[in-house]
């Protein structure tokens, strides 16, 4: 293995200056960045950069943020948790297909698969429906991961996943039923959660995702409308959103939307999200008026997806801990 020229010494107090990843992994990461860029350049998708500072921020109910201030004024900024809003302003302005590799920031997310600062790959395709976009996610993963995924992808709806692994209907089951299902499968009491969707998250993350085959991509589609976020609601079935997620084994890789273009509905969802934030004792976020104005001006019909790039590197290099694919992790920044 190609390791660093400066050997690790055993006195732990001084060793934290060293990189987390070994040199081979950083070389693999560099290759993957290059391959990702080539993938999109070959498809005429424009690489863009949008600000990491946001004057308003995101209203997403389940995220916590970093704030930035400067030494010259009282103005506060949020470090972006996602480049989505700015990228949609570009789309509304007529950019055409775009992609971006950027750092994003989510406070409190720290674990073997999470870092508060991580790299997001996000792209938008005009005129693509979700199926076409899932196809492109698969092509990208095949390009980057090659032999790591030996079986063709599997696709199931959110309801099918619940039916298959828990024999529960996520659209009709009561909170009581969902809690019972967790207790039956784990022999422990579920935590007390704020709403029904949180119990669905509990079951999905603890009892469904870990069953997915690590040899293939698993696409889950037709998420509940309550979890639509910035996706459209399905025209035929108002209970479901035009949203998919992609997993490799239990590792969540990607989240994609057939993008909501209706400014009025988007504003209402942001207000509702802020209400949920209030309910969960999280600070309210100002609504991004630039973004809503862009939607009013007209977002073209498009689909978009966000991929956790560090997790792709984990898969490509066989690392179990996200720290092992970073030059310096959060605890060494």
């Amino acid at each position, binding site marked *: 293995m190609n390791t660093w020229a400066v050997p690790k010494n055993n006195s732990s107090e001084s060793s934290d200056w060293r990189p987390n990843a070994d040199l081979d992994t950083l070389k693999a990461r560099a290759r993957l960045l290059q391959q990702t860029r080539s993938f999109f350049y070959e498809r005429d998708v424009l690489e863009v950069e949008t600000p990491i500072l946001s004057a308003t921020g995101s209203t997403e109910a389940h995220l916590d943020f970093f704030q930035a201030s400067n030494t010259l004024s009282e103005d506060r900024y949020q470090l972006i948790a996602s480049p989505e809003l700015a990228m949609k302003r570009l789309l509304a302005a007529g950019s055409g297909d775009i992609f971006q590799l950027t750092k994003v920031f989510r406070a409190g997310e720290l674990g073997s698969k999470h870092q508060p600062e991580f790299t997001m790959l996000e792209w938008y395709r005009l005129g693509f429906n979700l199926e076409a976009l899932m196809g492109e996610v698969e092509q990208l993963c095949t390009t980057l991961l090659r032999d790591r995924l030996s079986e063709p992808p599997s696709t199931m709806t959110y309801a099918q996943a619940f039916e298959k692994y828990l024999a529960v209907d996520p659209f009709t089951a009561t909170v009581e039923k969902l809690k019972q299902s967790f207790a039956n499968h784990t022999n422990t009491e579920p935590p007390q959660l704020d709403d029904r969707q949180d119990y669905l998250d509990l079951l999905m*993350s603890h009892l469904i995702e870990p069953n997915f085959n690590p040899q293939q991509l698993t696409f889950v589609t037709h998420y509940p409308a309550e979890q639509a976020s910035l996706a459209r609601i399905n025209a035929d079935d108002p209970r479901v959103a035009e949203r998919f997620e992609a997993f490799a084994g239990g590792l969540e890789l990607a989240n994609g939307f057939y993008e909501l273009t209706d400014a009025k509905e988007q504003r209402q969802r942001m207000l509702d999200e802020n209400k949920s934030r209030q309910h969960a004792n999280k600070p309210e976020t100002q609504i991004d008026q630039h973004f809503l104005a862009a939607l009013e001006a007209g977002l073209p019909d498009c689909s978009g997806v966000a991929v956790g790039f560090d997790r792709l590197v984990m898969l490509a290099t066989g690392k179990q801990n996200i720290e092992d694919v970073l030059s310096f992790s959060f605890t060494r920044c």
Partner: protein
Amino acid sequence: MASYSTNEFRGGLKIMIDGDPCSIIENEFVKPGKGQAFNRVKIRNLKTGRVLEKTYKSGESVEAADVIDTDMQYLYNDGDAWYFMHPETFEQVGADENAVSDNMQWLKEQDMCVVTLWNDVPIAITPPNHVVLTISETDPGLRGDTASGGTKPAKCETGAVVKVPLFLEEGDMIKVDTRTGEYLGRAKE
């Protein structure tokens, strides 16, 4: 009452679960990108020794368990309790059978043990990794048989039964690993 947020969870942290003191073995952060965050922990119940899993909503507060590990010297057993003494303060505590449990077979007077105290009451005893014990009962030794590799059971002064080589005799002193119950070698006082 002291408490910890799930953000402070890490291996070794002592928390209260369903009225029992527990120690966190492993803490895993689980969060769907768009969804609720959880901390899934693997914990050891310090009273029963049982390992279990539990899931918390991230950000939740959990009551801290007032548990400390103290090095203390084992003194004696009076039939009801096993008594330990702090080597500096000479303070004594009595541990009941639940706290001592299977480890009673390794307790030799004057050995230093780790006593786990919860609200100042002993709930678990950890004997030294290696103890020296005198064989009190075993079949007669096969003198000179140091090569055949056979073993026989030997009962020690503390009640522990250890598999020892055939050549050992009553009154011999042996070194034993308390974590595995294995014979490590002969010992000299």
